[in-house]
């Protein structure tokens, strides 16, 4: 009897320890960033341009660039991904072709992001003549996040109860009428969560934008989608490793990291709230 109780306690203690280690690492990262980058964080940092060879000033262009390219990627990936998922889940018959399409999407999800970068370079920048631009990077990031948008949308559609669909069909609704008015609205929370998470991932990617449009320094904000842009993850990379005086700018690098992390955490929290509210 006593042995059972001890085993149970030991089990719980091990699990709690593991959880604590995970949370601990996150806490460590946040602490380290805040400690070393906190001093540069203020409103000026976010809205000013960099000055004096990046050693002073703010990171506004990088914030702007990340925001624009991420929004563009989402605007491209969301409709395409949702349409694809609707077709796969609601219309496609179970044939070898459909299974191949599904397998391809799963595999695309595993392709390294740098490979997406090279693909973007070959197809968007050079092949389609977009040049190094917001547009090329947006398209590349859209491709990167497409598999995850499709997968989460499919799951959201699958979770709509069968009884709800049958109720609509029993009234004489066509398949599309059922999807449009009953299934899709019911799946919106799940779809939205998937899109926000995809957004948050795209915001932090460096390799795909490296080959397709990001610049370390550009004097002006991108005026059109065909211009180059600055971005937070790349800015962070350059400040930490390529700068002529990395030690001096280290606080700026940490500050950039904090901003990027804050952005990602904020997006993830929104996704979490959307999901929780509709449970």
């Amino acid at each position: 009897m006593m042995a059972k109780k001890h085993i149970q306690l030991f089990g719980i203690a091990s699990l709690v320890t593991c959880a604590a280690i995970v949370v601990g690492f996150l806490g460590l990262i946040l602490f380290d960033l805040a400690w070393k980058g906190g001093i540069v964080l203020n409103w000026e940092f976010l809205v000013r341009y960099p000055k004096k060879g990046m050693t002073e000033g703010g990171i506004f262009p990088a914030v702007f660039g990340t925001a624009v390219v991420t929004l563009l990627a989402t605007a491209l990936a969301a409709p395409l991904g949702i349409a694809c998922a609707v077709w796969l889940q609601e219309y496609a018959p179970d044939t070898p072709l459909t299974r191949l399409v599904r397998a391809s999407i799963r595999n695309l999800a595993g392709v390294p992001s740098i490979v997406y970068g090279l693909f973007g370079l070959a197809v968007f920048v050079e092949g389609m003549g977009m040049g190094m631009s917001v547009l090329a990077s947006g398209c590349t990031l859209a491709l990167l996040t497409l598999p995850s948008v499709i997968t989460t949308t499919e799951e959201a559609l699958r979770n709509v109860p069968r009884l709800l669909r049958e109720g609509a069909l029993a009234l004489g609704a066509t398949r599309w009428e059922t999807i449009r008015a009953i299934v899709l609205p019911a799946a919106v929370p799940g779809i939205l969560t998937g899109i926000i998470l995809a957004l948050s991932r795209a915001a932090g990617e460096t390799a795909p934008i490296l080959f397709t449009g990001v610049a370390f320094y550009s004097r002006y904000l991108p005026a059109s989608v065909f211009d180059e842009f600055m971005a937070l993850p790349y800015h962070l990379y350059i400040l930490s490793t390529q700068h002529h005086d990395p030690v001096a700018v280290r606080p700026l690098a940490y500050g950039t990291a904090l901003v990027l992390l804050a952005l990602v955490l904020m997006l993830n929290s929104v996704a979490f709230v959307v999901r929780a509210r509709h449970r």
Partner: protein
Amino acid sequence: MENYILEIRQLNLFFGKKHALKNINLGIPKNKIVALIGPSGCGKTALLRTMNRMHDLNPEVKTTGEILFDGHNVLHGNTNPVQVRRHIGMVFQKPNPFPKSIFDNIAYGLEINGMRKRENVRDAVERSLRCAYLWEEVKDELNKSALELSGGQQQRLCIARAIAVEPQIILMDEPCSALDPISTAKVEETMLELKQQFTLVVVTHNMQQAQRVADYTAFMYLGALIEFGETDKIFGQPEHELTKNYVQGHFG
């Protein structure tokens, strides 16, 4: 000879290899209530769902035979199931209101069936809610979410939703089994009113309910139709031994 609105002829249904409905021949008389009774697994729900082509959703199902409705074979490959379902509606065992307002639940069916003008929709919503004995309870809260209604109210909403599109037949799959006795009584009251305008086919586990509401009763066992006749006769003087055993409660 009764005027049949639906005639089922030589109907066989297979779930993959399983022979679920065996050579069913059944006529549904117009403006009457027909109860389908029988022990679990006898095929009564399978038979019901054949009538409005709900088995189309299941690729494993194969049917042979005919179901004649208004001169057409419901089961024919060329028959459009969407059209069938506009004339043959269904109420399910578990109430399944859409996650929309009470008004929109009913308006949806009207909208997809072509009703455009707002006034017509409003009138039709009121009419069908009255028919389902739900109007008095919800008339001031039509914009409330249907999910906030009680189980019995939700089921009556589903009935209102079904009758709003003015089908000729309403199929009901154990409509009261998820409801409390008071809601059950209200739904049964509704069913008796509805038969003036519609024909009802009701699957039920509850023999007392069949006796209370149904004009005709069909007893099924292991996929076959054993006996069909006026309810009083089926329960009072059944011809078949199996029927007799079932209605007398020797097995369920």
